[in-house]
Each structure stands twice: as structure tokens, then as C-alpha cells.
């Protein structure tokens, strides 16, 4: 597919990341780079350390070794609030929405870090606070339009089908206007039609806003179709990296997925 925005420089560099929970080594000396405007997929069998890697990127987990370079600044670990304010947003493998709140309110929470007025102003709901609220609402409505979820704007998300909840979660992540979007299995548990819709939205986000996307996915068809590059993890180690075609042909990857006699 032809791209509107050319893939640019490295925006995120993970170097020698190791993460252990007690004796369990989740990640062992993993290094890779993410470039501006690209879609990078992280794949691997269950327990390979994919979600852990996302959690390290946005500061949920603190790696014991290694360094993270984001927008030119190198640090040992990311702080979650720092990640959020610097333009990293994410979705979760098990949907983490506020079930009792409407689609619109859930998406509004994604703009939390951008709201400047303090609690008192917001409680007064007058003057600058009102103006700010209108601006944020307008931004959320653009996302609702973009993701074609107008019909469920007022519906409590707990009552929505799974595929739509996933879309709302993507909406909330987009509300933060991220430059780097982390998607943890955005298509898990979806039927074919929902998967196709989600693929289209991911590509559209990348195209329309130029957002860099790192995603974890199990569906190989999806990974091969939409990603520019693939990083393969197995037992916490990086075993391959490259274009989808190169990775598919890689014998180590095939062994990891199909299993070999040790």
C-alpha cells in the first residue's frame, strides 16, 4: 500500500531490556527500535513476553536492566505519567473501560491529561472551564466520527458487544492524541468482519494522524497484512526481526511456533 507519510527516524529505542519476576525471566536482553509513522507488530507464542514489553514501554513495569530512549532522552525506565504526557497511549488485552459510563464519557477520560483547569474550575463549569470542555468534546466527537460509533455515543459500554468495546477503547487511546500508540491484541476474540473493521481503523489512524503504532497480535494474517516490520519474541528473547515476509520465512520463527524437539 502506498503511504501518505514516509517512515521516519527512530522515535523509541529499547536496549538490552531484561525483566524478571522473582525467578521468572519475562524478558531477557531484548533490543529493538520503533520508527516514526510505522506499524510494528510484536508476535510470539503465549508467555513470550509480548504484553510485558508493552508494559515496560509505557512504564507499567520497571525493567531490571536496559535503557529506553524516547524522543532523544535515555532513561532506565519510563514513568507512567511521563509516558502519558509525552504522547504514549495504549489499549489493553482485557478491555479496561469504565463499564457503567457511556462511550462518550469513556473517550473523554482519554483527554484527562490535557485538561488544564483545576477541580474547582471544573466543578464551577463556567467561563474558561466550559470553553475547555467544549474543545475537548469537539475532539472526542471527531474521534467518534472517525471510528463510526455515533450510534453508541450514549450507550453504557458494559452493554456493548465485545468488538465495539474494543473500538471504544481505541477511541479512548486516540483521545490522548498519541504519537505512539500501543495496542495489546486489538483483534483478540473478534469475528472476521470485526477484525476487518479494526484493521481498517488501525491503518486509517496511521494514515490520517501519522501515529506510530506498536501492536501485539496472534492472527498471522492480520500481522502480515498491516505491519511494516515484525519483532518475534520467544521465552522472553528476541528471535527475529524484519519485514513480514522475511519473518515468515525464518526457520527459527517457524520452530518457535510449531515447536521442535529439544
Amino acid at each position, binding site marked *: 500500500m502506498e503511504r501518505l507519510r514516509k517512515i521516519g527516524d527512530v522515535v523509541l529505542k529499547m536496549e538490552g531490556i531484561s525483566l524478571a519476576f522473582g525467578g521468572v525471566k519475562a524478558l531477557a536482553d531484548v533490543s529493538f527500535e520503533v520508527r516514526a509513522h510505522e506499524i510494528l507488530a510484536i508476535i510470539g507464542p503465549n508467555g513470550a513476553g509480548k504484553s510485558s514489553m508493552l508494559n515496560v514501554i509505557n512504564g507499567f513495569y520497571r525493567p531490571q536492566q536496559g535503557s529506553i530512549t524516547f524522543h532523544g532522552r535515555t532513561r532506565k525506565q519510563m514513568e507512567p505519567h511521563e509516558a502519558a504526557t509525552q504522547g504514549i497511549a495504549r489499549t489493553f488485552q482485557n478491555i479496561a473501560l469504565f463499564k457503567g459510563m457511556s462511550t462518550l464519557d469513556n473517550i473523554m477520560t482519554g483527554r484527562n491529561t490535557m485538561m488544564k483547569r483545576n477541580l474547582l474550575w471544573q466543578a464551577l463549569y463556567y467561563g474558561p472551564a466550559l470553553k475547555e470542555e467544549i474543545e475537548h468534546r469537539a475532539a472526542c*466527537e471527531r474521534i467518534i*466520527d472517525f471510528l*463510526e460509533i*455515533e*450510534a453508541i455515543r450514549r450507550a453504557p459500554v458494559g452493554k456493548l458487544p465485545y468488538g465495539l468495546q474494543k473500538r471504544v477503547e481505541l477511541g479512548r487511546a486516540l483521545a490522548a492524541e498519541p504519537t505512539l500508540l500501543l495496542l495489546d491484541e486489538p483483534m483478540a476474540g473478534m469475528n472476521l468482519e470485526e477484525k476487518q473493521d479494526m484493521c481498517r481503523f488501525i491503518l*486509517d489512524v496511521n*494514515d*490520517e494522524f501519522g501515529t506510530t503504532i506498536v501492536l501485539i497480535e496472534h492472527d498471522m494474517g492480520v500481522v502480515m497484512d498491516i505491519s511494516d516490520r515484525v519483532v518475534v519474541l520467544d521465552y522472553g528473547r528476541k528471535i527475529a526481526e524484519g519485514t513480514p515476509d522475511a519473518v515468515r520465512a525464518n526457520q527459527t520463527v517457524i520452530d518457535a511456533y510449531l515447536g521442535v524437539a529439544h
Partner: protein
Amino acid sequence: MTIPAAASAADTLPKLVLDNARRRGHRAAFREKDYGIWQQWTWQQAADEIRALACGLAALGLKRGDKLTTVGDNRPRLYWAMVATQAIGGVPVPVYQDSVAAEMGHVLAHAGVRFAVAENQEQVDKLIEIKEICPELELIVYCDSRGLKHYAQPYLKSYAEVQEMGRAFATANPDFFDATVACGQGGEVALITYTSGTTGQSKGVMLTFANLIETARNAAQLDGLGENEEMLSYLPMAWVGDIIFSLGQSYVCGFCISCPESAATVLADLREIGPTYFFAPPRIFENILTSVMIRIEDASAPKRGMFRYFMNLARRVGADILDGKPVPPADRLLYALGEALVYGPLRNVLGFSRVRLAYTAGEAIGPDIFRFYRSLGVNIKQLYGSTESSVFVTVQPDGHIKADSVGVPVPGVEIRVAESGEVMFRGPGVFHSYYKNEEATRATKTPDGWVRTGDAGFVDADGQLHIIDRAKDVGRMKSGGIFAPKYIENKLKFFPYIREAVAFGDERDFVTAFLNIDLAAVGNWAERRGLAYSGYADLAQQPVVLDLLDDCVRKVNADLASESRLADSQIRRFLVLHKELDADDGELTRTRKLRRAFVVEKYAPLAEALYSGRDRCAIETEVTFENGRKGRISAELIIRDVPAVPTLCKAG
């Protein structure tokens, strides 16, 4: 009612727009829900938008007589595109937004369309695909640029871009627009709308400005429409009904039309707008009623009880109160209580609080559904018409509503029933001719202006018209009794569990039928019984579901047995199809009417099985998915026998 001189001088839609901008320039003309807010344009703003677009199209070379197609959901910009085209003498050819590329290609190639205005990427993709078979298509204008940024085709332009060119053009030629609008004549062809093709390949019906404006005006006067009406424009823009309501009557009366946010939000938008004037095909009224009934079934026992009690009361006296007939004072009092507790809140939830006038047409509406709305106090009326008549032929008159008739002719229209039983009409709305189809025009329109409708019907003692069926579909049973398939199918479809039905019986000993279950209604019914199913095909063949339908068929038979002429056409065997009949597979038209000949041919083995005495039949069919891919599904269908109900005379 006298019409102001200024209005009668405006004999084309573009002139009416300018006229409205002069007389009620500050009043709302169009609304569209976008980004969650109702955006509004006044008549003056709409006129300016139309002027900019018309000048832009003229600058791009659209000439008098050129065809321009519009395709997309109801959007003000597409309505403007139609009028802008007319303003410079072009002819709009609106097409159905859900038609697949091949269908659209056929229409555009036949019409020789040069320009297209498309809503979004989806429609642009289709137009690009069919450009090869439509050599005359030169330019595609799109309203919404999303996803179109890397389309490099030189023949693509954005709506805003064209309007920008138009503004520059208008500055250079300040008199152009008013002069070209003044050139328009009432007798000119205003647009070509392609029929839905119930009877094979669709035909392009040419309607003149006079057709649209006079018909719109007559009907508006009949039911007292004014500039304060509110209407939701949500039906396909290519359909003549939407053209008459959203272009004709809105421009003639000067009322505002509102376009919903998306097809999925229509019911919510309906509630927000609270229209005073509403049109919906029976199917929509049926769907709304079904959704109400499903929610009532899930409500708590006291609420259910209250609903039942007051709906029974409404069924008894509601329609009479609406018609102004005498009703006992005690019932009136109870009805007023019901109004406060049930009817008012229910109408509010449905968005019908302000409806003064609701029309339905296109198919027969179930008498129960019809009575439900009338007893709630919604003034719903049936009308009868066609594309060839600019919609209005007959309308049910206030105060004399008969559920099974379609009413009396609107002012200016005459009707007569030919010896063959076919209904014919004549009036100001009679179409100009079929585009590039002289033969069909001659076959439909007599030299003295009568139009054959192809419907069989009769006029009763009150002068009200009743429609039985398509004239060519009325057949004979071997026993000699008449067989009116649509009549039987409608009776079946009036049950909420049955979505579609196809009856067979011409030249046969007895009548049989294919049925489609209504997945929402039967699905809910099954859930309440704790019945597990995996999908449509599975649910449709469950024995309890077949029992449910068996019951419906028996009731239809009892009904038929009570009408001596139709007693022979009781349904003796039926089966439930393994897939829903679908327009994508060519089984229904885009307006969801059955394409009988096609269905009969496609499912011939099943029809044979119905008459062979077997109790099962295997079938494999091709299906088209929404994304255009094709697949095959196969199933084994169970055939059920139903006993005939003895007619009264036989029993006696």
C-alpha cells in the same frame, strides 16, 4: 387556499430556492447532525451554497441537458447538488447508495452520466470501479475527504474545491446564476429516477418540475402542510418519495428537513428532531412496533399489566377518538388517564410526540400495526402511488380511514379500473416518459395520459381504492379459484415472526409457501424459552420454531377460509428458507420488494419438493456477503404439512 403570486411564478426547484431565500431567508432549511451536534443552514445560506456549487459545476463544463448523479446517505450537500445541477439546466440522476458497483454501472451507463457527486470513499471507490463501463463519466466530486487523500486520480475533486471555483466564477460572471435559473421552465425534465426494478431491469423515469411541484403542492394543501413542519429525511435519496417530500414539499412549503447522523442513528435522531410530518414504509413502523413489544416483554409485571390494560382500551376507542367519532365519556376519561401513563410517554420514546401526519406506502401495512399507531393517537395514513405518478395517487381521507383501503384520489388526480381489473390514473404528476425507452413508455402511458399501474384493485361504494395484488401476479388455481400471492404473503408477513414469504399456487392444486423468519423477533422468543441456536439457518429449522410458524399459517388459513373467493388458496405445505432473502443476492429489490420471477427460478427445486410429497429437501445456494465476496451455503430443509380449515358453507 390561495397561493401567493410569487410562489406560483416559481415553476422550477431552483426558482423556489431563491424564492424561499427571499421570503424566509432567516428560517432553517436544512439540518444535519455532524460531530454530535445539529448543524443548521437557513434558506439564504442554502441558496448561497447551491449558487457556489452550480457555478463551480458550470465552470467545470456542466452544460444544459448533462446528467449528474448523486450517491450517498441523505446529506444536505447531495440535495444541494441536485438543485445546483437543475439550476444550470442539468438533470440529476440520484442512485441508491447501497447498490453494488455493477448495478450502479448499469444505471449510469444507461443515463450517460458525465458528473458524479459522491458522499464518501465508499461511493467513490464504486464510481472509480465502474468508470470503465461508463465512458461518459468525467468527474467525481466527493463530500467527505476521509481516506481519499492518496487517491491521485485527476478526475477527483472535493466538494469544497468545486464550490471555491464556483465562487471565483460567480465573481467573474455576477449575472450568470440568476440568468440561468430564470431560463428554467416548469415543463422541463427535473430529474431521472430509476425504478427499483420489481419487474426486471430498472427503468429511468423522467419527471418534470411541473410534475414534482404541482403534486407536492396539491398533497400539501390536502393535508394542510406549512412552513413550520419538521421532517426527518432518512429514506434513500434515489427514491421518488424522498424527492417529493425532501425536495418537492420542503421547497413548496418552505419547511426544514433534517438529515440523520448515520443510518444506525435514525431512531435516536427521530426522537431528537420530533418531526411533525413523517413518512415510513410499513417495514419501519413494523420494526419500531417489534422493538417496543420486545422491550415490554422484558419489563416488570406491573408495567406489563398497565401496558396491556391501556393498549386494550386504546384498541377499542383510540382510533375512534382520533377520527372524531362518538365515544362513551367513561372511556374518554380512561383514555385521558392512559394518555398520561402510557400513550404520551410511549409516543415520546418513539419520537412521535409532535407527529401531526404520518404516511406509509410501498406495501400493504398490517392491520394490527396500523391500528396500533392510530390507537396511540398517531395520525398515520396510507397512500398509494408510484414513481410514474410522482408518488401521490390516493391518500386515506381524514375521518374515514379504512385499514384495508388506500383512500381516495388526491386533488387533480382521476382513477379508473380497467376491465382487466388493472388500476389506472391520470393527473398532474404523470411522468414525462421513460428515458431511452419509448416502447416501455407506450406500454405504460396511453395517448390520452392514463397510466397503467400494473396493480389489480377495485373501488368500493365510498369511492375508496383497494389494491389486491400485482395484476400480472394474480393467477388461477387448478380448481378455478383466484390465487393472489401477494395478498397471502402479506397476511403471513403481518405476523412479527415472519419477515418474508413467497406463495406458490398458480396452476396448482393447492397453495404452498417459503417463509423467512424474523431473526430479531424469533431470536428473542427463543431466548426467552432458553432455546440455544447458532445462527439464522439453525434457528429456522428448529422444530419448535416450525411449530410457531405452523400456528401462524393455520391462523392465515382460518382467515382465508372466511373469504369465499379465497378459501381455495389456503396454505397446505410450507418450508422455512435456510437464508434470508436479500437484495445483494438479487432476491429483493433495493426497496425490499420480492423479485418473484427470480426467486421462483432460483429455488425451483424447493418449489418442486413442496409439491412432491417429500418431507425434506436439500439445497445449496450462492450468497453474496456485504463486502461483495461470494460463498456457498447448503442445508436440508424440513417441509411441514398444514391442514385446510373447512369453509363455513362446507361445514354447514
